[in-house]
């Protein structure tokens, strides 16, 4: 930015602040003195003011007739019940869910490895020990929202190094797509 452009920028910022009533007394007086003698500057102020005028004329939208009732219904609703059924400690639940995911990943790997031309290359990382362990039973149909969210928790996946499985699956997909194997 050239020196002149920088000066114009500062001046433009001052004009904007003038419109918002944000200049101190001395700065405002100085700017108004210049505005009185510099038509170009006055035109610029009017252009900036024109934007404000248009924005202020934006019609207010209609407020849905039931919005207030919806606000009241939501605000007055009792807090969701917590602890409806006995729950295992958080970490145990996370491990159970992640274990189930690991089992699913292992099963997918096994199925893929049985398909002709889709065997993992030797350098592919071996599944971590946890993934081979029998998974705790998990009834996903009865899972709470929290459990489903936990199942999607990246941190839980990282704890069991499941990312490696995902990486392996991606490689298998790539091999499949390229016809190698």
């Amino acid at each position, binding site marked *: 930015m050239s020196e002149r452009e920088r000066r114009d920028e500062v001046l433009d*910022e001052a004009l904007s602040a003038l419109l918002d009533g944000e200049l101190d007394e001395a700065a405002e007086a100085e700017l108004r003195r210049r505005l009185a003698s510099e038509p170009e500057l006055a035109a610029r102020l009017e252009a*900036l003011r*024109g934007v404000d005028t248009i924005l*202020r004329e934006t019609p207010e*939208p*209609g407020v849905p007739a039931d*919005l207030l009732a919806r*606000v009241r219904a939501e605000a007055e609703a009792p807090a969701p019940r917590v602890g409806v059924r006995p729950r295992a400690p958080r970490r145990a639940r996370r491990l159970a869910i992640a274990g189930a995911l690991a089992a699913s990943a292992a099963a997918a790997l096994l199925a893929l490895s049985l398909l002709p031309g889709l065997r993992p290359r030797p350098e592919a990382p071996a599944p971590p020990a946890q993934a081979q362990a029998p998974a705790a039973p998990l009834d996903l149909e009865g899972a709470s929202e929290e459990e489903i969210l936990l199942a999607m928790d990246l941190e839980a996946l990282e704890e069991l190094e499941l990312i490696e499985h995902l990486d392996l699956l991606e490689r298998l997909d790539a091999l499949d797509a390229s016809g190698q194997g």
Partner: protein
Amino acid sequence: MREDEDVRLMLAFRDGDGAAFDRLFERWAARVLRYLERMVRDAGAAEELAQEVFVRVFRARESYRPEARFSTWLYTIATRLALNELRRPHRRRPHDSADDEEGRGLRLAGELPSAESVAAARERGDAVDAALATLPERQRSALWLAAVEGRSYAEVAEMLDTSQKSVKALVHRARSALVRALEEEAA
């Protein structure tokens, strides 16, 4: 004075007058909804956010203390919800709320603009509105709050959790961008 009345209503609501909340809603819902529509560019999302804004006001009644202007508090809630919404991944595709006036329910009493004024505003405002949509979200918010809602830079700084100096720059850049859009439209 509008602010005195808002504080009086909020204090009355805190003390158990449910109708006072309804009155606050009537006073502010359309303005807040308009701001949110301009911020998120999606009438449905703006409506959900407006609902959330007033739910939060409702739930905060017991802890309400009239230390700041009621409307500053209200717009702070609205601004933060809008910015969160804009940062949410895979948010729904926006659409122009101006095309969605039918079926939006009843307008609050006394706020019906004439058909002519709506048409004129649309015609003149199209270029500015389109340019407004392309502004970075904080510029859009700062300009709207300062130029349309008449908030001081200090208030906008509080709402956007930034400095007054930053607000001054945000508002200036936004205004300049919209002037350019108008000039290009006229050329």
